[in-house]
Every structure is written in C-alpha cells, then in structure tokens.
C-alpha cells in the first residue's frame, strides 16, 4: 500500500469497498447481529422442544432437574457472567487504546471460559457415573439410573422420582439436557478458539480505537453464548427445587 492510498483512506485496516472506518465497523456489527439471529432461531428450536416435553411430563422433568448439581450450575453461571464482564472490559480498553489491560481482559475471558468447560466436564462425568447419558450414546452403557426406593436412606446417585414420573420420561429430559448444554458447550469451545485468535492479534497490537471490529464482534458472540446459559440455568437446574429433594 503506497502513501497516497493511506492518505485517501485514512487507516491501513480500511477495506477498499467501504467509505470510511465508521461504515466498515457498522457493517461488521450488523453482520454479526444477523448471524446471532440465526443462532437464536437454532437454539429456539431446542427451547421449543424443551417447553413441549416439559408441559407433557412436568413431574419427570422436575425429578430429573433435581438430580442436577445446583452448586456447580450456579457456580458456572457466575463464571460465565464474570467472563462476559471481562469481555466487555476488553472491548472498552480497545476503544480507549490501552493494549496491556486489553490483553489481560481477553486472557481472563479465555480462562473463565475454560473454567466453565472444566466444570461442565465434571458434571457430564457425574451423569456418566449415574448412568444418565440417554439412549445408547455411550456404547455398552445405556440409560439406566438406579431409582431411589421409598423408605431407603437417601442416595444422591440414585434418581428420586416424584409421583407420576417414569424413568423413560426422565430420559427425555436428559436428551434435551445434553443437546442443549452440549450445543452451548460447543459454542463455548468455538468462542475459546476465537478468543485465542484475538489474544494473538492483540499482542501484535493489531487493534486500536479506530479499528477493533474483531474484538467487538467476537464480544457480541461471547455475550450471546452467555445469554443462552442465562436461560438454560433456571430452565434445566431450577425447575423442580420447590417440589422437594432430589
């Protein structure tokens, strides 16, 4: 790029098909929002299936939900909200042109995202131990939790069925649980990859107050994934707590 082009366009990151940096930034943000709408529709289908089966099997959904670990679920909600905050701060520091805190915030966001995935892995492993992976997804270990008998001492690994619930209906909950949290976790993994890319480029000093669309746009994606979890947490973990222990 010769000096004249630089003078005309004002910034080396400006693509030739945009009038100015402002228009380029707006176009990027707009495109990301359109993508997020398709994502909302994608998760919307699963939320629809959830609502449908929950209205069909309310007791089974409450029983199955009570078996989830509320402490880990709440902890992960906090972790994800914290990561959204650090992501927002990363955008802020990019906008005011402070590179060091920008990198620190991005690294924090990545670490918190990985923490979330780690906790999720612990939860999945607990479900594996209790034979709660639906269908025959795990070869040789099909869905078959032990059911808590009346009058027996409470065993946290056994499924406590509320009146009117059956094991087959509980399996339906776990299909939805793994589909929804699994797709959410996949989005987190993709987000972690994108953050790694951001950290590398921000270390190279690629972003400045004039040009920071990648930080802004990946931030939008990260917050969207946070919002999905904000809905998943009460819908999956909290729906039957008032109906007694699990």
């Amino acid at each position, binding site marked *: 790029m010769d000096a004249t082009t630089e003078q005309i366009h004002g910034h080396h990151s400006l693509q030739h098909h945009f009038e100015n940096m*402002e228009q380029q*930034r*707006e176009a990027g*943000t*707009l495109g990301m*929002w*359109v993508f*997020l*709408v398709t994502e*909302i*529709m994608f998760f*919307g*289908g699963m939320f*629809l299936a959830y*609502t*449908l089966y929950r*209205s069909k099997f309310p007791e089974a959904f409450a029983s199955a939900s009570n078996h989830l670990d*509320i402490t880990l679920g*709440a902890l992960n*909600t*906090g972790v994800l*909200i*914290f990561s*959204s*905050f650090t*992501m*927002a*701060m990363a955008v*802020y520091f990019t*906008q*005011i042109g402070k590179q060091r805190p920008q990198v620190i915030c991005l690294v924090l966001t990545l670490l918190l995202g990985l923490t979330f995935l780690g906790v999720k892995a612990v939860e999945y492993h607990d479900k594996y131990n209790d034979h709660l992976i639906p269908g025959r997804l795990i070869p040789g270990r099909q869905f078959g939790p032990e059911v808590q008998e009346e009058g027996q001492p409470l065993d946290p690994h056994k499924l406590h069925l509320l009146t009117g619930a059956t094991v087959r209906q509980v399996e339906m909950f776990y299909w939805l649980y793994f589909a929804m949290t699994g797709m959410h976790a996949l989005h987190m993994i993709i987000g972690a990859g994108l953050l790694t890319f951001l950290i590398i480029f921000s270390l190279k000093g690629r972003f400045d107050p004039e040009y920071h669309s990648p930080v802004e746009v990946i*931030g*939008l994606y990260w*917050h*969207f994934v*946070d*919002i999905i979890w*904000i*809905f998943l*947490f*009460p*819908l999956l973990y*909290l*729906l039957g*707590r*008032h*109906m007694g222990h699990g």
Partner: protein
Amino acid sequence: MSEHIVSVRVYVTIFLVLLVGTALTVLAAFVDFRWKFNTIIALTIAVTKATFVVLYFMHLRYSSRLVWVIVASALFWMAILFALTFSDYLTRGWLSVGY
C-alpha cells in the same frame, strides 16, 4: 456519528446486577410459590438479565435503529415458532370430533 464508549461504571453495575439476579433466581427456586409462579419468576429474572446483557454489554442501547430492527426480528420469529406450535399442542382435545 462516532462510536459510543460505555463507561466502566456502567459495566461494573451491570455485572453486579447479573450476579444479584443469579442469586435471586436460585433463592426463589427453593420457595414453593403457588400455581406456575416459580416458572414465571425464573423466566422474568432470566429475561431481565438477558435484557441488561443485550442493552449494555452488547451495546444495543447505543446501536443504530437497523440493529434494533434485526434484534426485534429475532423475537418476532421466535414468537411465531412458539405461538403456532402451541396453538396446536395446547388445543388438542378441545373439540371432540368423534373418532
């Protein structure tokens, strides 16, 4: 029109609001409200939290009208998805058609 920079104060406030919302939703889940109020309370808190994230963390409040239209379209199509599906499922058996 130049880019709006949200202040650190706003970000911290939203962060705290989200944490309080999470605590509230957990506490409310253990209280037995009548009818379906447990679900209604949980979803109200979730929608409130999501709104704060969208407006401030995602800068929607400071974005152009075009972005607002796109976000509204998402809610509109979601409403269609739920309304049409449940207009079927929830109304089954309302009429006896003799078979």
